[in-house]
């Protein structure tokens, strides 16, 4: 069988010589990267995974046992719409770009490379987690997330190979050369260089950081560059599962903690106290907010004007698509005080997208707080103020407390351990991380899920060890 017949796709790969030539070189490097940086210790195990073999409602969720290096990573785009238009910006209403417009080539490439870089990064961040899985169910979910991040990398590489010539091929190679957390060749965005070495980190990462991915993909899914829009639309269906893993994972930790709180001291009972959960939320939420970029941004204005990156649900939510004359008011730090400043809407689009994201995160918090209420516990979890602990944008370089009040660096340092995970917290959480791989069993610090995967029970053999 031809190599390309094994790659599920709806881009006519078996006929596309240009794409074949690019993949010929890249594919072996990708597999080397997967073996070197993919899940450590489980490459030869059978995992019950979902594979997209078609974009139709049946094909995108095909379940079977598969060894991860043999996973059929594929290339899928949402089917094209007739008469697609540029949906926003200065070229609103013109036919969508089917090829890269020369004047936007560099901007588009940068957008795609930045998005693409996050996909392999998270696989690298999570590669040791399998060894401490709380259950086979969770282990399988981890690997599902990992292989899909791999497929998302493929999706971005498809765009680079298909539309950006030699530069695109070079950038695709570079995506396999950078390494999360390596000071010499770090991943582009800082959240993707943070260690993700325990399962609480993993759930918080998939809840908060993957959710940034959802919003970036949603904004790109509106793009006037149609291949990008269609690629991102399909990726969003998979991204939803990653957030499900994070959202329900943290929810199950919260449920278990609440149960233990009723029995006695959570720590001595081997659970994760709520204040530690809160500090992990604070850490990952704030780092994930940075991923949206500066509050006031010339890039955001340029990308929107050019029709490259829209707003969240641009087509559905908005009736006016140029955003040319609107004003957005935000808080900025001036003379060491918070002051309101009016910014042209197009320059504030990062902040607008961040706002949508925060609203979505709040829903997750509400679900967890409902778990606490259902369990009869009075404590509640919350999101820190978006100004807290920021490293990018208007608030970087200033220090805020968890409620968003401007405070001195000394005070921040003094109170840091209240708000962010300490070494001690991290060590405690790590001390709980012992693998549970017996079918149907689960670690003591987390509650079992309400249901299994695709109708299978919790005690199904999701991974054959």
């Amino acid at each position, binding site marked *: 069988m031809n190599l390309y017949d094994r790659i599920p796709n709806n881009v006519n790969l078996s006929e596309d010589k240009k794409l074949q030539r690019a993949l010929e070189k890249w594919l072996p490097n990708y597999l080397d990267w997967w073996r070197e940086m993919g899940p450590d210790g489980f490459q030869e195990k059978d995992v019950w995974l979902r594979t997209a073999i078609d974009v139709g409602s049946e094909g995108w969720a095909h379940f079977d046992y598969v060894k991860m290096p043999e996973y059929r990573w594929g290339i899928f785009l949402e089917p094209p719409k007739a008469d697609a238009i540029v949906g926003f910006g200065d070229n609103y209403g013109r036919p969508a770009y089917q090829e890269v417009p020369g004047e936007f080539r*560099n901007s588009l490439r940068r957008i795609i490379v930045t998005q693409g870089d996050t996909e392999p990064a998270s696989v690298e961040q999570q590669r040791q987690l399998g060894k401490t899985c709380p259950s086979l169910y969770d282990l399988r979910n981890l690997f599902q997330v990992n292989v899909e991040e791999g497929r998302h990398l493929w999706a971005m590489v498809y765009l680079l190979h298909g539309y950006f010539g030699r530069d695109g091929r070079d950038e695709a190679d570079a995506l396999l050369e950078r390494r999360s957390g390596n000071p*010499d*060749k*770090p991943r582009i965005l800082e959240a993707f260089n943070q260690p993700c070495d325990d399962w609480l980190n993993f759930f918080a990462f998939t809840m908060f950081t993957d959710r940034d991915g959802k919003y970036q993909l949603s904004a790109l899914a509106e793009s006037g560059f149609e291949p990008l829009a269609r690629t991102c639309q399909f990726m969003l269906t998979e991204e939803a599962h990653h957030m499900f893993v994070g959202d329900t994972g943290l929810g199950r930790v919260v449920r278990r903690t609440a149960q233990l709180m009723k029995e006695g001291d959570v720590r001595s009972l081997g659970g994760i106290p709520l204040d530690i959960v809160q500090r992990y939320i604070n850490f990952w939420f704030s780092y994930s907010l940075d991923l949206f970029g500066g509050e006031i941004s010339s890039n955001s*204005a340029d990308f929107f*004007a050019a029709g490259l990156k829209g707003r969240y649900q641009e087509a559905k939510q908005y009736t006016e698509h140029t*955003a040319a004359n609107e004003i957005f008011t935000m808080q900025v730090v001036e003379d060491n005080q918070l002051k309101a400043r009016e910014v*042209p*809407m197009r320059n504030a689009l990062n902040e607008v997208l961040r706002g949508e994201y925060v609203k979505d995160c709040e829903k997750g918090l509400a679900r967890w707080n409902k778990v606490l209420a259902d369990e009869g516990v009075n404590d509640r979890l919350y999101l820190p103020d978006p100004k807290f602990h920021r490293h990018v944008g208007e608030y970087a370089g200033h220090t805020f407390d968890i409620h968003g009040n401007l405070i001195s660096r000394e005070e921040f340092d003094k109170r840091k351990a209240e708000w962010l995970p300490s070494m001690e917290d991290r060590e405690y959480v790590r001390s709980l991380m012992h693998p549970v791989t017996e079918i149907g069993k689960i670690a003591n610090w987390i509650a079992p899920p309400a249901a299994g995967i695709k109708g299978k029970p919790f005690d199904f053999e999701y991974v054959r060890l």
Partner: protein
Amino acid sequence: MINFQTAPERYQHWKLEVNGPVATLSMDVQEDQTLAEGYKLKLNSYDLGVDIELADAVQRLRFEHPDVAVVVITSLKPRIFCAGANIYMLGSSSHAFKVNFCKFTNETRCAIEDDSRHSGRRYIAALNGTASGGGYELAIACDEIYLVDDGNSAVSLPEVPLLGVLPGTGGLTRLVDKRKVRRDRADVFSTLAEGLKGKRAQEWGLIDGYFPTSKFAGGIDSRVAQLVSAQSANPSGIKLNPLEIESTSGSRHYKYIRVTLHREQRYADLTMLGPDGPQPTTVEQVQELGDAYWPLQAYRELDDALLHLRVNEPEIGLVCLRTEGRVESVLSVDQFLAANRDHWLEREIIVHMARVLRRLDLTAKSFFAIVEPNSCFAGNLLELLLASDRSYMLMDDQNSVAVSDLNTGALPMSNGLTRLQSRFLAEPDKTDEVFQKQRFNTEEAEEIGLITFAPDDLDWEDEIRVAIEERTSLSPDALTGMEASLRFAGPETLDTKIYGRLTAWQNWIFQRPNAVGPEGALTNYGKPTQAHFDYKRT
């Protein structure tokens, strides 16, 4: 009013660290410490205030730290070296200010190259992060460029694709003339907003090498160590003290420079006093006298006065250059300097004089030299006369001008020629005649062509008055263009190309609707609206 004087202990944006033979100049721009309102100096972008400190540091290294063999220019900001001139500052500045800003920053970069050429100090650009626009132009003024290879950091000249203007500090010229990057590659590089990273940047000759993050500091250190061992040690330096300036609304007085402003008539008198009293006769005495030594102090003051007139007195269109003192005193200082030019301090003093005189050549104001009997246009001060657009010498037996050894090549113009050579391009033998005769009264000076006009005392006052009134009535733009065209006859050098193209191309493009019109690229940078060009080629 913009003050060009500063000192390391007052720097806001740079840290100067001297460690034996190695100096490190680290850029750490404080974004709120701007010269004007309305912009923030983010990402190590700069305004004139930042560059004034850099110019001061380069100058100070030469006089105060002659033992330094290698200067490392780097940044204290993580992942960013320098983002170049601040775009919002440029957007909110008048055209005249932009031009003066660009000229000064160019002079600073040329001063780095001048130091490297004459004093042998090696400048290393240690790019610990992205160097874009003026950031890369600062790097390219150094002898060697090393870039961190972190998968992100790049060198770039994004002016054309991003802003619709040109790199304003010699970047394009240095790419092809200094680093000799192939023109087609330079074309690609200069239209690629995001620039090039380590490997390709080195292949194309844009940088000299690259190191991964963890080996960056070590890589720079070992290159520095190689360069240091190749240099011989120099003795200790002298201190450059702050200049004492008495300033009123109509005048600016230094010890050896007096500027009188005639605002109504839009001209100034600038009088430079020659050396007074006994002058040192050994290099040790000069070292002891330090910055109070006449040729150093007087020219530092002249430098400051020129910068002040350029930036703070834009409506003064004409400067009448005058001198006061004894011709013999100037000649004996010159004789001493010429005889001791191999000693580091005398060499630095001479090349400093040369730089200040070039600053005068490049100043967009008319200069008339006014030669009267108590004047001392001799030797180095004769260069003031030769640098002027024209000269008036009173017909008087007591009046004379003279040459010294310093006029033979120690004080070259940007075009690499002496001012006498530039003056006598049509009759090169005249320069030999001038050096044979050495001293000239008015009649002789007019005869050989050293001066323009020689009115007698009956006509003198009226001639000067009419000349001033006529000059200041002409279009200032046309005068600037005309003077710049006439001053630099003869061959081109890197410097003349840089200034010529700055004046002709950059300043033209800076004025065009495609840059600064309501739909221009510079106007719309960072705004929610996009640029729209008039695509007709001019």
